[in-house]
């Protein structure tokens, strides 16, 4: 009986102790000494949270630690940004550097520290794609840098040359216009009732997303973000044209059915078919990753009779140099970081920096290195370099088709993607709130796609809403209750938008 009591008491104490575990917080101090480059000589640990392939990032961290032996980097893949980060902030275990997909969350909670001093004095930044510095991707329309792009993949249009051949159509010129693309989609939609229908377009990215950037000449409006955003305000009239055009293509039967749908089963005979494997779709508005992750894998194109080449996302006007919409994770140094400069170096190494990209290419070029799924790392969401360094680009291009038949397409494509503009949720304050609380709730995509509404009817109200959310976010994030970096004039300007909303 006594023995039982002792065991019970021990168990109870153990359980109570377990409940209280994890309430502590560890910290690391240091001597404060730095080397000739301003990097600490103390042994420190930096935590890096990210959205990338885990194996790639671990190897990148090893390369960073090789360069800075006194710095240990601990990496973690983020499952859900707002959940993981707010839990970490509450628990006092916030990462030193993190790369995120939703900038509103980071700005609203002041996750990112001001890194202007480091960015402005970094010679590496002079060799970046022009739109990054010109548009201040990571500045959020202030004079301060809070983040830098860490991962970039442009939008992409792909064409299946075999389908074009089968339909006796001409391949379009690589610097085509928006109108030419729409015409090709229509021409390539053929249903002769004798077999499986040919569709002009298969999409992952909606065309209206691409159109928002490509809608007009820079002289008309200097668009630098989704929904016609020019750095000051939105104009959804541009978006509405693209939305309507895409909706009309869908109702007109030019767009291939989506995977896992009855329409797909009716068309291909299999519910789970992906249109990209049918050999019956001419133009794809796909993620850039689809090429390396799927089409470029061993024997895939041969198996399905495909011949995929990339095309630049076209512009409405025939301008050779134009912006393209892109996925661009934004990373930053956290406000609680004790070693911000070292954290900045890590941020740059992992994302935008030339040196980091050289280390990255070493990893991608070695196809014997695979991730947990057994996939060579270049086939696991390999990003695109943001540096303009020639050596980096030569090595990068070598990982794509280099035969005389395909290389010209890839060269033209790569030449066209040096002016990326991120989707709104990466780079525009208040954009996510606007989508979450207004835009996504009106169900406009579904209504227009079904032919039940005209996008233009929503443009004026949506523009007013978008401007309101943006202005409100700017005041909240960068006004006196936030980072407090807005001038009185800017504050008054945004306040005027908020005040005039709904009147």
């Amino acid at each position: 009986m006594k023995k039982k009591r002792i065991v019970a008491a021990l168990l109870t104490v153990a359980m109570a102790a377990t409940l209280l575990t994890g309430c502590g917080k560890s910290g690391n101090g240091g001597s404060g000494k730095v080397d000739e480059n301003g990097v600490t000589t103390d042994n420190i640990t930096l935590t890096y949270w990210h959205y990338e392939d885990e194996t790639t990032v671990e190897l990148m961290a090893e390369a960073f630690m090789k360069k800075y032996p006194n710095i240990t980097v601990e990496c973690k893949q983020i499952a859900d940004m707002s959940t993981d980060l707010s839990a970490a902030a509450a628990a006092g275990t916030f990462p030193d550097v993190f790369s995120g997909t939703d900038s509103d969350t980071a700005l609203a909670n002041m996750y990112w520290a001001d890194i202007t001093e480091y960015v402005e004095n970094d010679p590496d930044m002079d060799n970046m794609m022009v739109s990054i510095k010109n548009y201040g991707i990571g500045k959020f329309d202030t004079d301060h840098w809070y983040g830098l792009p860490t991962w970039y993949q442009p939008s992409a249009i792909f064409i299946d040359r075999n389908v074009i051949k089968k339909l006796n159509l001409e391949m379009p010129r690589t610097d085509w216009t928006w109108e030419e693309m729409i015409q090709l989609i229509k021409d390539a939609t053929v249903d002769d009732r004798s077999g499986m229908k040919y569709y002009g377009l298969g999409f992952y990215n909606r065309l209206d997303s691409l159109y928002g950037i490509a809608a007009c000449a820079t002289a008309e409006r200097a668009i630098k973000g989704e929904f016609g955003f020019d750095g000051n305000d939105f104009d959804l009239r541009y978006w509405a044209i693209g939305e309507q055009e895409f909706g009309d293509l869908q109702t007109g039967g030019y767009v291939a059915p989506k995977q896992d749908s009855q329409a797909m089963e009716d068309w291909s005979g299999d519910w789970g078919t992906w249109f990209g494997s049918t050999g019956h779709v001419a133009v794809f508005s796909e993620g850039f990753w689809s090429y390396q992750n799927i089409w470029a894998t061993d024997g895939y194109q041969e198996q399905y009779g495909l011949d995929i080449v990339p095309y630049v996302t076209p512009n409405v006007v025939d301008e050779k140099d134009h912006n393209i919409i892109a996925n661009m994770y934004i990373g930053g140094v956290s406000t609680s970081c004790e070693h911000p400069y070292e954290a900045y170096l890590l941020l740059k190494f992992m994302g935008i920096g030339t040196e980091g990209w050289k280390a990255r290419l070493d990893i991608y070029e070695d196809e014997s290195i695979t991730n947990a799924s057994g996939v060579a790392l270049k086939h696991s969401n390999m990003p695109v370099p943001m540096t303009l360094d020639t050596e980096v680009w030569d090595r990068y291009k070598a990982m794509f088709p280099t035969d005389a038949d395909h290389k010209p397409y890839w060269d033209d494509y790569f030449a066209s993607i040096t002016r990326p503009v991120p989707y709104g949720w990466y780079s525009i304050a208040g954009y996510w709130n606007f989508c979450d609380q207004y835009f996504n709730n009106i169900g406009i995509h579904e209504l227009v796609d079904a032919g039940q509404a005209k996008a233009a009817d929503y443009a004026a109200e949506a523009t007013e809403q978008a401007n309101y959310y943006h202005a409100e976010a700017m005041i909240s994030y960068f006004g006196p209750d936030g980072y407090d970096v807005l001038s009185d004039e800017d504050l008054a300007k945004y306040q005027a938008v908020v005040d005039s909303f709904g009147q």
Partner: protein
Amino acid sequence: MGYLFVLPWIIGTLIFVLIPLGQSFYYMWYNIRITPLGTKFNFVGTGNFTQIWLENPEFPQQLVTYIWQTIVEVPIIVVFALIIAIMLNGKIKAKAFFRLIFFLPVIIVSGPVMNMLVSEGASTIPAMNTQAVISALDAFLPTAVATSIGELFGNMIMILWYSGVQILIFLSALQKVDPSLYEAAKMDGGSAWECFWKITLPTIKNFILLNAVYTVIFLSSNEQNQLINMIKNAMFSGTKEKGYGYASAMAWMYSIVVTLIVLLFFLILGNKRDVYDRMVAKRKRMLKREARLAKRIERRGARNVRKLERARRSHKYKTYDGSGDY
């Protein structure tokens, strides 16, 4: 020693229930931003509530859907569980195996597994034409009601999966029913149907309430519940308006609604006395009344005797013959 054994539970309740409960009550009056440098509280009073009701159309919509679905689904789950429990309590072969089969979903389809199954369409019966059911019901029911019931058919598999624990509770209740009652009923010519209504159901009626309450709580807090997901998303949302304060306000309003639904089921299924109990009580009340009346008569008689005695002594009272003697 007993207190030591329940100590982990007390600590758990204190840390994971009472303190968070108090905290959330405090939080709901504030806009809270959790930054890496600390938590910022901004008092907004009832601001979170007005924000939810005036600017979040999804919350009231989901709340109405939840109330309606819970009220409809709870009886279905409880009745289904009772039927299965009665069948499993009968004399059938491989009884233990069937019990295992019906309880298995409780273990397997918890949390993420359930989400995966639902996303794969495993919660519906493909052969069941939900639209046809809705059209049929629409003919004699309001559209909103018909649609909700129709959707219930589309979700039938999942509802049946939710019955595992209730089956177990009913089974234990059924096994507690005194077999001699059934024997006596059978001797008096009672059919199985009559035995069910006159013996089984009255005996396990408390467990029906227990299962109804359990089902309400389960439906209100599982991962398939849109309101729970909405609160969770609001809690971890990085947007300025949402966060812990906003989510706390939502959670408190939601918990009040859940409590009201539990109360509703308590009122419907709570312990009501049957005809026999009511007759006994009536008889008892009558006996009490009669006893009170008898006492009153007794007291009155004694009082009258005393009065007569006093009158006689003061010679104010005389007998008919004038002697004053009885």
